[in-house]
């Protein structure tokens, strides 16, 4: 048992589970405080998400919706964890996601591009934003968190301005892609059949999963991954070993930005959501990516599951009983849970301490037993 718990992989998993349970518990307590009557039902609905529906078909369809939204979150969390492995905290992923959204929507609606060029354009937009952060970091030593946050806002208002040109006249939302330019919608490739013809299930799903695996391979098996991680872990040693540490920082943020930008296209090109040109806050996807990255133990494969879970909880929030609670409560509950997800490292540390302590106790017991035996 102890041996199993010492395995870092198992530890990460257990820590993540503990975080989830704690988050749900605190969410439940918050509900209890506001109104005890509906608390139990609401928290169960949050956990159940699409399972609250009775009909199997509806369940499947709603499951598909959650899955469709998981993919952009997964991409954002890959973006965060990739940079994090190289010692950079890319909080700018949120802005890179915005840049990607803006790029793919404008290309689809204004220029009538097909889905593939739109996707690549979104990827490029995210990469350019990442490159700016990386350049500032390596050349002028500007902290990537500061420049990242600034760029988040710049890109939000830039996106609002640009996308106003392709918005509906009557509403603040961008036009429907399916009306203006259906060729920009991501192909379903028959995958929608498995989800009760959910049109939002597209090639984005397998693509994001493949990219997660690719990121895993890049980080752990390749020369580039070796160099990037070395740079992140010890910049001075990387320089001493003749690695181009400044180039590596820029490259990392370009890749990180590209992942976030591509992620945006995986949501907006399904037609699931439209951009609201009057929104005044940066979409939470990039920030939730941080929680997903940590909850997944900073492992690309783990991120697949953690991203799904977080999206699952977020979607589950809409099933909170609004007779008892205001509609914002769903956001509150999911954010409490997501917040707790960031505690994975802390839980891991506590676990290690506990293991060490119990081992010490054991060693002492053995020693005293041995000395007693010696006395006889």
């Amino acid at each position, binding site marked *: 048992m102890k041996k199993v718990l010492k395995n870092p992989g198992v530890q990460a998993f257990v820590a993540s589970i503990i975080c989830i349970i704690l988050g749900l518990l605190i969410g439940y307590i918050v509900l209890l405080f506001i109104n005890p009557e509906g608390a139990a039902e609401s928290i169960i609905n949050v956990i159940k998400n699409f399972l609250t529906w009775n009909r199997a078909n509806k369940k499947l369809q709603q499951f598909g919706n959650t899955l469709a939204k998981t993919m952009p979150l997964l991409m954002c969390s890959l973006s965060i964890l990739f940079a994090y492995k190289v010692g950079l905290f890319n909080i700018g992923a949120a802005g890179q996601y915005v840049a990607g959204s803006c790029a793919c929507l404008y290309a689809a609606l204004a220029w009538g591009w097909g889905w593939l060029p739109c996707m690549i354009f979104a990827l490029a937009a995210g990469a350019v934003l990442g490159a700016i952060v990386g350049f500032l970091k390596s050349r002028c030593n500007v902290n990537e968190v500061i420049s990242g946050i600034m760029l988040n806002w710049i890109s939000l208002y830039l996106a609002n301005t640009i996308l106003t040109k392709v918005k509906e006249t009557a509403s603040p939302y961008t036009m429907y892609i399916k009306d203006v330019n259906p060729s920009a919608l991501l192909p379903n490739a028959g995958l929608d059949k498995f989800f009760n013809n959910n049109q939002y299930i597209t090639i984005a799903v397998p693509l994001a999963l493949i990219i997660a695996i690719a990121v895993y391979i890049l980080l752990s098996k390749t020369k580039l991954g070796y160099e990037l991680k*070395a740079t992140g872990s*010890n910049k001075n*040693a990387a320089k001493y070993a*003749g690695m181009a540490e400044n180039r590596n920082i820029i490259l990392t943020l370009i890749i990180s930005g590209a992942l976030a930008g591509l992620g945006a296209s995986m949501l907006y090109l399904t037609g699931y959501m439209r951009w609201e040109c009057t929104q005044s806050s940066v979409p939470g996807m990039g920030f939730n990516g941080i929680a997903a990255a940590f909850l997944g133990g900073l492992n690309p494969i783990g991120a697949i599951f953690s991203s799904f879970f977080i999206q699952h909880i977020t979607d589950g929030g809409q099933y909170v009983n609004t007779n008892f609670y205001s509609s914002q409560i769903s956001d509150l509950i999911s954010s409490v849970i997501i917040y707790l997800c960031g505690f994975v490292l802390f839980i891991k540390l506590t676990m290690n301490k506990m293991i060490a302590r119990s081992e*010490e106790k054991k060693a002492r017991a053995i020693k005293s037993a041995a000395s007693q035996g010696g006395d006889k």
Partner: protein
Amino acid sequence: MEQYAVEMLHITKRFPGIIANDDITLQLKKGEIHALLGENGAGKSTLMSVLFGLYQPEEGIIKKDGVEVKINNPNDANALGIGMVHQHFKLVECFTVLDNIIMGVEPNKMGFLQKKEAREKVMALSEKYGLHVDPDAKIEDITVGMQQRTEILKMLYRDNEILIFDEPTAVLTPQEITELMQIMKNLAAEGKSILFISHKLNEIMEVADRCSVLRKGRYIGTVNTKDTTIEQLSAMMVGRNVNFHVEKKPAHPGDVVLDIENMTVASKVHKNNAVKNVSLKVRAGEIVCIAGIDGNGQSEFVYGLSGLEPLVSGKITLLGKDITKTSIRQKSILGISHIPEDRHKHGLVLDYSLEDNLVLQTYFNPEFTSGAGFLRRKNIREYANRLIEEYDVRSGQGAVTTARAMSGGNQQKAIIAREIDKAPELLIAVQPTRGLDVGAIEFIHKQLVAQRDAGKAVLLVSLELDEVMDVPDRILVMYEGEIVGELDPKKTTQEELGLYMAGAKRDEVKA
């Protein structure tokens, strides 16, 4: 019964996987100088951390003046009159000496500083123990020796009775060391009890009354220095007899391998250049040592040479090829190996495994990376295992051990294995034995001599006098960024070397 100032009885402290202190007993008499001797990783630091309340022991008790005490944190230790001069001083650079001494215990009336009072007390202490300081000088402007005296005054100002000195001589000149030894004797004569942590045996013999030896977390014994010899102490410390003298045959210098002309490197701390117009040559088959007190431009000189810092001016030639503007990677490929001064800052990626660190300079070779950019794990593992075997690098889990989890000596061995196995033309070794125990030092010196005998050029930068006298074939003394003297280690004395290092003597040296 004998009166002890502090007793640590049967202290056991475990960390996951290791026992750092295993049933250690240390008794410090009133008014004695007690040396604590042990290799790196022997458990000296852990034991002192226990005494300071930074760690709680699993077993054992601490007594002060015969009464059992519980030390839960450093404040408790302070309240009991236990003070420490750390190896790396804990001083605020831009504060004056006086401000540093009173920091944390500032005398005040209703929140207003009473510096006059403090100054009087400090001056009285300084007079009494012969600790000369200028109370109004800023720390950044005074010598290392005076900084250390400031640290000692800090302890005395707090009325500490038990003074711990953690490797206090590492940063001092020979003259300053003599002075410190005298100060320690004065303090002991005034009734202070001193714990002196060191692995410099001749200093222990000179100044300490008794010496306790630790090895691999175990208590080996306590001896009166009067009744023992250096050889006996070192055998206790290492567990076997150690050959102090470096065995080497006469050198046969060949062609010039490294030729540096008028090299100047800027300083990062002040406006002056750290290295001024240095020219020197290193030939194949010889060890040239750059000696000097820490902070006289040696680090910057090596940074400039290796390419970690840009040159202001100068020309570097390796085997007749101008490498002044060559990249670090290219220099490495051309045959420069560099054992860096700071193994944690430059030498290792601590979070990487041992095997990944062993290929840090060569990972891009086709042997370790396929054409498609994938690492060849199997080859890396085989290569690492060979080096581990050949250089006797010890670690918990072999090639996959995280470098951070290895002892300092084995980390250094790993770096040396990596740099020497590259078969360099020029080996730059900067303080290769810093912080290591005699066993590891012996090994490293042998490796350097072996490289020399194999016809390689070796450039050694060292602060350790014994090393400077023993290992090289030529000594160049660096003082304030300039080469001020060239000495023959066979003909010179430590005293003469000290005069050059302190800047009291200089020749016009031609490279």
